[in-house]
């Protein structure tokens, strides 16, 4: 069923905000998806995560007809003041920017004619191109820095079962603006479903975007997110990926450093438990001189889990004085866990500093022994070391209240151990 899963062109007719140009683009993309199907390990980008096989094992049917029930008694996080956007099954429901100057922020439901038309060979991106009909566009005016953090509540309703959702969001930060977001996933569905999302980010001169991805609890959802980021000069992009506890998650992040002195930071701390499969794929393109990029990926892997990091740094011939560093570290604490990585460099400029490191192994026995001589049990010692390993990432979050909130969530994941 999954092997020959196709979608009829009629589905595109159902999408209501459509013009002829857009329709042709969607049909072309759907044809590509129908020809290629879900990506499998034959695709180099999916070498370590055979999505087709994973789906065949877990899904009998996949439906594209979704509902969007409003969650009346939805509760906000009350740990700290924040603005919010509420999405249900990917659809933009409402937003509240009560701490901000209203006219500095524009938010609306996504329209099809304003999206990028990049040609893609990734079947899931093509599927998204063809079918997306939900999401938001958020634009921050020039010189405006948001007072409070923005939480994007990404809620999945309990009636989801064997659905595939295709949604798309777009964030634009104009000159000198600043935005901090937390993408907070809440899954109420007890069943399996697939969320295929696409994110477009444009950071104009001297703007700053900081994002944290995290979820409320464990979930049986299958998540794929393609994030397409463009950075103009002196802009800064920071992304913390703390999405432990998902059955399947692949974050595919592409960053184009298009303006001088722009900087990109991707950090991740993951604790993968029984049966979890998570992949982080980054591609950082240094297209102009004097840019910086750093990736630091740390994973702890429990029984039967699989962690993957595929990172690529590309340095164009004119991008001299590039400084790029990539590090992935994995702790395998169970013999059935597996960690694969492919840290790749493709460099055409000579006056650059590019390096990567990748390690994987178990918890250092000497450290465990040391802690046990100080009176800790083995379990306590392990927990302490794992916490310390992952906290190196979260300690880089500047706001204390948010850091506390994030660490609490992470601890909740680890303590299942």
């Amino acid at each position, binding site marked *: 069923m999954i092997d020959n899963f196709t979608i009829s062109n009629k589905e595109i007719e159902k999408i209501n905000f459509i013009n002829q140009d857009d329709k042709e683009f969607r049909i072309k993309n759907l044809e590509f998806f129908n020809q290629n199907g879900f990506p499998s390990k034959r695709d*180099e980008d999916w070498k370590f995560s055979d999505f087709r096989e994973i789906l065949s094992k877990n899904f009998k049917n996949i439906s594209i007809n979704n509902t969007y029930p409003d969650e009346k008694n939805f509760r906000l996080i009350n740990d700290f003041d924040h603005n919010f956007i509420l999405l249900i099954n990917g659809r933009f429901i409402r937003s509240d920017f009560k701490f901000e100057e209203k006219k500095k922020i524009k938010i609306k439901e996504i329209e099809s004619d304003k999206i990028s038309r990049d040609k893609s060979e990734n079947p899931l991106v093509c599927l998204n191109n063809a079918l997306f009909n939900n999401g938001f566009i958020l634009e921050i005016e020039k010189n405006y820095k948001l007072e409070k953090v923005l939480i994007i509540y990404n809620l999945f309703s309990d009636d989801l079962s064997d659905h595939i959702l295709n949604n798309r969001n777009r964030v634009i930060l104009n000159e000198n603006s600043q935005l901090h977001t937390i993408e907070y996933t809440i899954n109420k569905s007890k069943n399996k479903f697939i969320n295929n999302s696409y994110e477009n980010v444009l950071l104009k001169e001297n703007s700053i975007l900081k994002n944290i991805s995290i979820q409320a609890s464990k979930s049986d959802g299958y998540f794929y997110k393609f994030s397409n980021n463009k950075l103009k000069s002196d802009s800064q992009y920071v992304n913390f990926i703390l999405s432990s506890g998902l059955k399947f998650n692949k974050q595919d992040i592409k960053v184009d450093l298009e303006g001088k002195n722009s900087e990109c930071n991707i950090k991740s701390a993951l604790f993968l438990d029984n049966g979890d499969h998570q992949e982080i794929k980054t591609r950082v393109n240094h297209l102009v001189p004097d840019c910086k990029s750093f990736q630091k990926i740390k994973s702890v892997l429990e029984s039967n889990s699989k962690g993957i990091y595929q990172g690529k740094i590309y340095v164009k*011939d*004119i991008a*001299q004085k590039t400084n790029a560093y990539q590090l992935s570290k*994995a702790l*395998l*604490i*169970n*013999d059935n*866990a*597996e*960690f*694969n*990585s*492919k*840290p*790749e*460099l*493709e*460099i*055409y*400029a*000579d*006056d*650059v*500093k*590019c*390096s*990567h*490191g*990748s*390690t*994987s*192994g*178990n918890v250092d026995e000497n450290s465990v022994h040391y802690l046990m001589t100080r009176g800790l049990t083995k379990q306590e010692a392990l927990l302490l070391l794992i916490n310390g390993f992952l906290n190196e990432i979260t300690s880089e979050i500047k706001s204390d209240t948010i850091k506390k909130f994030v660490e609490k969530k992470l601890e909740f994941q680890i303590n299942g151990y």
Partner: protein
Amino acid sequence: MKNQNINTNQEYKYGFTTDIENIRAPKGLNENSIKFISKMKKEPKWMLEWRLKAFNRLKNLKEPNWQKPKYPKINYQELYYYSAPKSASDKPKSLDEVDPKLLETYKKLGIPLNEQKKLSGVAVDAVFDSVSVATTYKEELTKKGIIFCSISEAIQKHPDLVKKYIGSVIPLTDHYFATLNSAVFTDGSFVYIPPNVRCPMELSTYFRINAAETGQFERTLIIADKGSYVSYLEGCTAPMRDENQLHAANVELIALDDAEIKYSTVQNWYPGDKDGVGGIYNFVTKRGACRGKNSKISWTQVETGSAITWKYPSCILQGDNSVGEFYSIAITNNYQKADTGTKMIHLGKNTKSKIISKGISAGNADNTYRGLVDIGKKALNSRNYTQCDSLLMGNKCGAHTVPYIKNKNSSSVIEHEATTSKINEEQLYYCNQRGLNQEEAVSLIVNGFCKEVLQQLPMEFAVEAQKLVGISLEGSVG
């Protein structure tokens, strides 16, 4: 250290050809040419059947195309699959019987086929095109029970050994070029070291591609029986040619319990001219199996020649406590392309592997390290350490690193690091200040950059390799 031997504008000094009449197989890749090769080699029936099996398999295979360096399509029907110096059809029994023209060629190459070879302690199985002409030092080796001969001779005289091990590391069903080699290989070396024997000298083969339009398909098989040790040298030079020449060799190493094989290569084939015209395509499959407990295989390579180098000397670490090592220098200049690296496949317990790779690109060249470290579920307590460093000279060349790292158990440790940088201006300035010219300074710095690998080379190669490093980079800076 001041390297006196670097001469500016030094041309490729091994660019000459010898005029010797050839016996050729019918042009093209088909059953007849395979039968012709087998007949010329006086092979037993099982060998011909094996070749034909490979050929049948080849019909269903496609040429791989995932590699970074692309090359024009090769028309396999336009190649000759067998060419032998005419005088080899009745084999010479001593040096006096060898074609004097051949001897002259060797002299130019500096192969010690005369009396001096005894002093240098090198036994040479010299390959001219596709047939072994003379094998030296046989007696001394025979005393120890070591077999060192051409693969054709081994097929006739030691069929049991060949039958047992050929294709056991690189099976018939492998990728396109390996299978092509299995079908049409003409010659190569065979080494067998009996149990508990330490080979008293470095075994060495010089390859030389001579006839135009002849792809050379070598097959080397080295077996180190229990507790034995062998160090094998492979050095290559080729005449200047305009047509691209294909070289698709297969090298299989097998190390049994407590055995050690050290395989060193200096490759200096014709890299094409300054505009990227001509040059050899070096598509080689090299694979070693550490079958026994405590066995060790070590690959060392210095790759400076060839238009395209595309090879991954690999180790399959099957035996418990076995060790795999890979030391590599790949230098590309002008329009050369190299896509090289290794595979370390850990299957046994307590296996260890170490990878040191140094890539240097200059001019318009592209240099890729591509490697795999795979630690299996049962390979408990295994370790890998990988270091890939790249040096770039100019912004028209590229340096790429594509490592695949897989860890499937919690008791194993993998460490990988890679860096890319350029020659430090201050170091250059310092050298200039001390009276070295630009070229000498570059050679000195690059030799320092490669030191970890150069140290692994046997004495015979170390000097030549250091010179090569300098010569290969001439004109790339300043």
